[in-house]
Protein backbone atom coordinates (compact mmCIF):
# COMPACT_ATOMS: atom_id res chain seq x y z
CA UNK A 1 0.00 0.00 0.00
CA UNK A 2 1.41 3.44 -0.92
CA UNK A 3 2.51 5.43 2.07
CA UNK A 4 3.10 9.08 2.89
CA UNK A 5 6.45 9.29 4.66
CA UNK A 6 7.46 12.28 6.74
CA UNK A 7 10.30 13.93 8.62
CA UNK A 8 8.15 15.46 11.33
CA UNK A 9 10.00 13.84 14.22
CA UNK A 10 13.40 15.09 13.02
CA UNK A 11 12.11 18.57 12.17
CA UNK A 12 10.32 18.78 15.50
CA UNK A 13 13.43 17.67 17.40
CA UNK A 14 15.53 20.32 15.64
CA UNK A 15 13.09 22.96 16.91
CA UNK A 16 12.85 21.36 20.38
CA UNK A 17 9.11 21.14 19.97
CA UNK A 18 7.11 18.48 21.81
CA UNK A 19 4.39 16.38 20.19
CA UNK A 20 1.81 18.13 22.37
CA UNK A 21 3.02 21.57 21.29
CA UNK A 22 2.82 20.61 17.62
CA UNK A 23 -0.60 19.03 18.16
CA UNK A 24 -1.92 22.18 19.86
CA UNK A 25 -0.63 24.41 17.07
CA UNK A 26 -2.16 22.37 14.24
CA UNK A 27 -5.38 21.58 16.11
CA UNK A 28 -5.15 17.80 16.47
CA UNK A 29 -4.63 15.39 19.35
CA UNK A 30 -1.17 14.25 20.45
CA UNK A 31 -2.19 10.70 19.49
CA UNK A 32 -2.72 11.87 15.90
CA UNK A 33 0.75 13.45 15.80
CA UNK A 34 2.18 10.14 17.06
CA UNK A 35 0.26 8.21 14.38
CA UNK A 36 1.50 10.57 11.64
CA UNK A 37 5.11 10.36 12.83
CA UNK A 38 4.91 6.56 12.79
CA UNK A 39 3.51 6.60 9.21
CA UNK A 40 0.37 4.89 10.46
CA UNK A 41 -1.94 7.72 9.51
CA UNK A 42 -1.82 9.97 6.45
CA UNK A 43 -3.15 13.40 7.40
CA UNK A 44 -5.50 15.48 5.27
CA UNK A 45 -3.95 18.01 2.91
CA UNK A 46 -5.05 20.81 5.24
CA UNK A 47 -3.32 19.27 8.24
CA UNK A 48 -0.21 18.50 6.18
CA UNK A 49 0.04 22.16 5.15
CA UNK A 50 -0.45 23.26 8.76
CA UNK A 51 2.36 20.95 9.92
CA UNK A 52 4.71 22.30 7.26
CA UNK A 53 3.75 25.88 8.12
CA UNK A 54 4.31 25.39 11.86
CA UNK A 55 7.65 23.66 11.26
CA UNK A 56 8.66 26.38 8.79
CA UNK A 57 9.43 24.09 5.85
CA UNK A 58 7.86 23.32 2.48
CA UNK A 59 5.37 20.50 2.14
CA UNK A 60 7.89 18.39 0.18
CA UNK A 61 10.52 18.77 2.89
CA UNK A 62 8.03 17.51 5.41
CA UNK A 63 6.09 14.82 3.50
CA UNK A 64 7.13 12.42 0.74
CA UNK A 65 4.99 10.03 -1.28
CA UNK A 66 6.31 6.46 -1.36
CA UNK A 67 4.31 4.49 -3.98
CA UNK A 68 5.94 1.15 -3.05
CA UNK A 69 6.02 1.64 0.70
CA UNK A 70 4.34 -0.50 3.32
CA UNK A 71 2.81 0.65 6.55
Amino acid sequence: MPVIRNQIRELRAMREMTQQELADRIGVTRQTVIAIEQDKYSPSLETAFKVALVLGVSLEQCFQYDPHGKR
Partner: protein
Amino acid sequence: MATSLSYREKSLYASLAAELLVYGPYFFLHQQNSVNKVAGMIVAIIALQAVLQLIIAIITRNRVTDERDHLIELRGYRAGYLTIATLMVVGLGMLWFHATFGQLHLDSRMVGLHFLSVFFGMLVVADIVKTAAQIIAYRRTL
Protein backbone atom coordinates in the same frame (compact mmCIF):
# COMPACT_ATOMS: atom_id res chain seq x y z
CA MET B 1 6.82 5.57 23.16
CA ALA B 2 4.04 6.22 25.61
CA THR B 3 0.68 6.81 23.95
CA SER B 4 -1.89 7.72 26.58
CA LEU B 5 -5.53 7.47 25.62
CA SER B 6 -7.24 10.43 24.00
CA TYR B 7 -10.57 11.77 25.22
CA ARG B 8 -12.47 9.92 22.46
CA GLU B 9 -10.72 6.63 23.24
CA LYS B 10 -11.53 6.87 26.95
CA SER B 11 -15.11 7.67 26.02
CA LEU B 12 -15.29 4.60 23.76
CA TYR B 13 -13.90 2.25 26.42
CA ALA B 14 -16.49 3.61 28.86
CA SER B 15 -19.26 3.10 26.28
CA LEU B 16 -18.20 -0.47 25.61
CA ALA B 17 -18.04 -1.24 29.34
CA ALA B 18 -21.50 0.26 29.88
CA GLU B 19 -22.95 -1.66 26.93
CA LEU B 20 -21.52 -4.99 28.08
CA LEU B 21 -22.52 -4.34 31.69
CA VAL B 22 -26.15 -3.54 30.86
CA TYR B 23 -26.84 -5.63 27.76
CA GLY B 24 -24.88 -8.70 28.86
CA PRO B 25 -27.08 -9.61 31.85
CA TYR B 26 -30.21 -8.79 29.87
CA PHE B 27 -29.49 -11.13 27.00
CA PHE B 28 -27.64 -13.89 28.79
CA LEU B 29 -29.14 -14.03 32.28
CA HIS B 30 -32.79 -13.06 31.85
CA GLN B 31 -34.99 -15.88 30.66
CA GLN B 32 -38.21 -13.91 30.29
CA ASN B 33 -38.21 -10.75 28.20
CA SER B 34 -40.78 -8.04 28.69
CA VAL B 35 -41.44 -4.51 27.52
CA ASN B 36 -40.63 -3.28 31.03
CA LYS B 37 -37.23 -4.97 30.95
CA VAL B 38 -36.41 -3.44 27.55
CA ALA B 39 -37.49 -0.02 28.82
CA GLY B 40 -35.51 -0.54 32.05
CA MET B 41 -32.42 -1.48 30.07
CA ILE B 42 -32.69 1.64 27.90
CA VAL B 43 -33.00 3.84 30.99
CA ALA B 44 -30.06 2.02 32.63
CA ILE B 45 -27.76 2.43 29.62
CA ILE B 46 -28.61 6.12 29.28
CA ALA B 47 -28.01 6.77 32.99
CA LEU B 48 -24.77 4.77 33.10
CA GLN B 49 -23.45 6.41 29.93
CA ALA B 50 -24.28 9.88 31.26
CA VAL B 51 -22.41 9.24 34.52
CA LEU B 52 -19.37 7.65 32.85
CA GLN B 53 -19.09 10.33 30.14
CA LEU B 54 -19.40 13.06 32.78
CA ILE B 55 -16.58 11.51 34.82
CA ILE B 56 -14.37 11.21 31.72
CA ALA B 57 -15.11 14.80 30.70
CA ILE B 58 -14.15 15.98 34.20
CA ILE B 59 -10.89 14.00 34.45
CA THR B 60 -9.74 14.70 30.88
CA ARG B 61 -8.22 18.13 30.51
CA ASN B 62 -7.65 18.05 26.74
CA ARG B 63 -10.93 17.25 24.98
CA VAL B 64 -9.82 18.05 21.43
CA THR B 65 -11.20 15.91 18.61
CA ASP B 66 -9.77 15.97 15.10
CA GLU B 67 -10.01 14.55 11.57
CA ARG B 68 -8.66 11.15 12.66
CA ASP B 69 -11.38 10.89 15.30
CA HIS B 70 -14.01 11.62 12.64
CA LEU B 71 -12.56 9.01 10.26
CA ILE B 72 -12.52 6.39 13.00
CA GLU B 73 -16.07 7.30 13.95
CA LEU B 74 -17.18 6.74 10.35
CA ARG B 75 -15.31 3.44 10.23
CA GLY B 76 -17.20 2.32 13.34
CA TYR B 77 -20.56 3.32 11.87
CA ARG B 78 -19.75 1.37 8.69
CA ALA B 79 -18.97 -1.75 10.72
CA GLY B 80 -22.17 -1.26 12.73
CA TYR B 81 -24.27 -0.80 9.59
CA LEU B 82 -22.83 -3.91 7.93
CA THR B 83 -23.53 -5.87 11.11
CA ILE B 84 -27.17 -4.81 11.40
CA ALA B 85 -27.75 -5.29 7.65
CA THR B 86 -26.31 -8.82 7.86
CA LEU B 87 -28.34 -9.66 10.96
CA MET B 88 -31.50 -8.33 9.32
CA VAL B 89 -31.00 -10.47 6.21
CA VAL B 90 -30.19 -13.57 8.27
CA GLY B 91 -33.09 -12.91 10.65
CA LEU B 92 -35.62 -12.37 7.88
CA GLY B 93 -34.29 -15.44 6.07
CA MET B 94 -34.77 -17.57 9.18
CA LEU B 95 -38.26 -16.13 9.68
CA TRP B 96 -39.16 -16.98 6.07
CA PHE B 97 -37.69 -20.48 6.41
CA HIS B 98 -39.57 -21.30 9.59
CA ALA B 99 -42.82 -19.73 8.35
CA THR B 100 -42.61 -21.59 5.03
CA PHE B 101 -41.83 -24.98 6.49
CA GLY B 102 -44.30 -24.65 9.36
CA GLN B 103 -41.90 -24.72 12.27
CA LEU B 104 -42.79 -21.31 13.65
CA HIS B 105 -44.96 -21.68 16.74
CA LEU B 106 -45.27 -18.26 18.30
CA ASP B 107 -47.94 -17.36 20.81
CA SER B 108 -49.93 -14.70 18.94
CA ARG B 109 -50.04 -12.51 22.10
CA MET B 110 -46.25 -12.59 22.34
CA VAL B 111 -45.35 -12.03 18.68
CA GLY B 112 -44.81 -8.29 19.19
CA LEU B 113 -42.54 -8.84 22.19
CA HIS B 114 -40.52 -11.52 20.35
CA PHE B 115 -39.93 -9.18 17.42
CA LEU B 116 -39.12 -6.27 19.73
CA SER B 117 -36.60 -8.42 21.56
CA VAL B 118 -35.00 -9.77 18.37
CA PHE B 119 -34.72 -6.37 16.65
CA PHE B 120 -33.47 -4.72 19.81
CA GLY B 121 -30.89 -7.48 20.12
CA MET B 122 -29.72 -6.75 16.57
CA LEU B 123 -29.36 -3.06 17.42
CA VAL B 124 -27.40 -3.91 20.55
CA VAL B 125 -25.01 -6.24 18.70
CA ALA B 126 -24.49 -3.62 15.96
CA ASP B 127 -23.80 -0.95 18.57
CA ILE B 128 -21.25 -3.11 20.36
CA VAL B 129 -19.57 -3.96 17.02
CA LYS B 130 -19.47 -0.24 16.16
CA THR B 131 -17.79 0.69 19.44
CA ALA B 132 -15.37 -2.27 19.28
CA ALA B 133 -14.44 -1.41 15.68
CA GLN B 134 -13.65 2.16 16.71
CA ILE B 135 -11.48 0.99 19.61
CA ILE B 136 -9.59 -1.40 17.30
CA ALA B 137 -9.12 1.40 14.75
CA TYR B 138 -7.64 3.62 17.46
CA ARG B 139 -5.25 0.87 18.54
CA ARG B 140 -4.19 0.29 14.93
CA THR B 141 -4.22 4.08 14.36
CA LEU B 142 -6.03 3.59 11.01
